[in-house]
């Protein structure tokens, strides 16, 4: 398993480079926007990847609430964190794209606005995880994740109706895309999905190690009464 990691890592790197080449060189230049449109090949796959990761978080949270397996809790944490990272990329590349095209940094464009709300919901999830004491964190976090995920359709619906009442410039244009552009888009999506998987795997390994170390500390404090007071106070302060 561990040997697979560097091999897949290198393959992912190769795929990302190929996707970069596709997006910057092979794909045709867009007529109205010019080369700025190529931001699309990073912006959109990042959004799709973030949504998938948040969906994984939803599944893992439900699984945890039902079966209470620690692995599910770790998957939930990892997918939320990496999802927020990709979501941040979307929120940064969106305005960078909007500025030259529309002259403004932020448009209350439907997709960008929904992504912002999604980012806020999962950031609040990460805050809850870091602020609650370790015993009950998995259950509280999983509950919040369920509520957050259920909120998502409402977010999209409400913003969609709001936008139809108050139209704004749409990032990325509305219409259909040329097949050669679609090809580059899909390759970038595949590359970023693999990359997201590798990042999640790394974060997963880190979390497993972290929990092992914490457990080791806890075991230590049970075995050594002289240092146990110090350990107890340390753990209490953490909680």
């Amino acid at each position, binding site marked *: 398993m561990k040997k697979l990691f560097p091999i897949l890592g290198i393959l992912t790197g190769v795929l990302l480079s190929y996707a970069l080449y596709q997006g910057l060189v092979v794909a045709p230049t867009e007529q109205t926007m010019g080369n700025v449109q190529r931001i699309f090949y990073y912006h959109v796959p990042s959004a799709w990847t973030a949504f998938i990761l948040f969906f994984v978080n939803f599944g893992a949270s439900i699984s945890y609430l039902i079966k209470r397996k620690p692995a599910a809790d770790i998957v939930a944490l990892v997918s939320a964190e990496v999802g927020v990272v990709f979501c941040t990329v979307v929120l940064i590349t969106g305005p960078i794209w909007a500025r030259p095209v529309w002259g403004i940094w932020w448009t209350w464009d439907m997709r960008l606005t929904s992504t912002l709300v999604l980012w806020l919901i999962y*950031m609040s999830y990460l805050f809850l995880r870091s602020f609650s004491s370790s015993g009950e964190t998995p*259950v509280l976090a999983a509950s919040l994740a*369920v509520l957050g995920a259920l909120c998502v359709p*409402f977010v999209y619906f*409400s913003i969609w*109706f709001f936008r139809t*009442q108050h139209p704004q410039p749409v990032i990325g244009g509305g219409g259909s895309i040329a097949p050669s552009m679609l090809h580059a888009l899909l390759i970038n999506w595949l590359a970023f999905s693999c990359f997201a998987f590798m990042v999640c795997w790394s974060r997963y390994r880190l979390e497993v190690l972290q929990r092992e170390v914490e457990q080791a500390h806890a075991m230590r404090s049970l075995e050594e009464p002289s240092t146990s007071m110090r350990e107890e106070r340390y753990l209490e302060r953490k909680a």
Partner: protein
Amino acid sequence: MSAPSGITRATLIKDLRMEWRSKDAINSMLFFSLLVVVVFSFSFDPTAEESRQIAGGLIWVAFLFAAVVALNQTWARELRNQVLDAYRVSPAPATSLFTAKVLGNFIFVSVLEALMTPLFIVFYHLRSLGPAWQLLLTMMLGTWALVVNGTFFAAMSIRTRSREIMLPLLLFPISIPAILAMVQATTAILNGDSARFWIVLIATYDLVFTTVCLLLFDTILNAE
């Protein structure tokens, strides 16, 4: 009195009685509501035409602040008296307790809103072009949305560090679609437009979140 509805009623009456007895809390909340409206009036010039157009938004932001302060208050008192632990060991179903809490908070926040609304109307010279009953319905549905999620998150944040800031941190993002709907509905009704989509949206939101919070409250109450 072991039937769930009996427990709900008993808990609710107890909560309301305690609120009524702690007059300090009520008086300070009332004064807080007045302050919020006055500060808003200085921030958003009531004589400007634009302010009347955004009145719907102003009112709901004011209500949101009042709700957060009220929610933090009610759970803080519970925590001081270790009531949460008592809930956990009691045989009463968690759903009855949750319902009682939500109803109590709903009544409390509604009272505050009932005080702030006439002030807003007077300060901003508001007139409603749409039917008033729709405004009342919107306010009730909107308040319920804030209170049901707020009570749930308040119970969650009690166990965290920095619990006062945790509540708004958790409540605001998830409430965004509801807030958008409340504000749009209120603005539409004030301007005489149709608010049907938004009212249906809040009603659906209320239904979904009330159900899920009821289902999950027992889980979070008994977490570790």
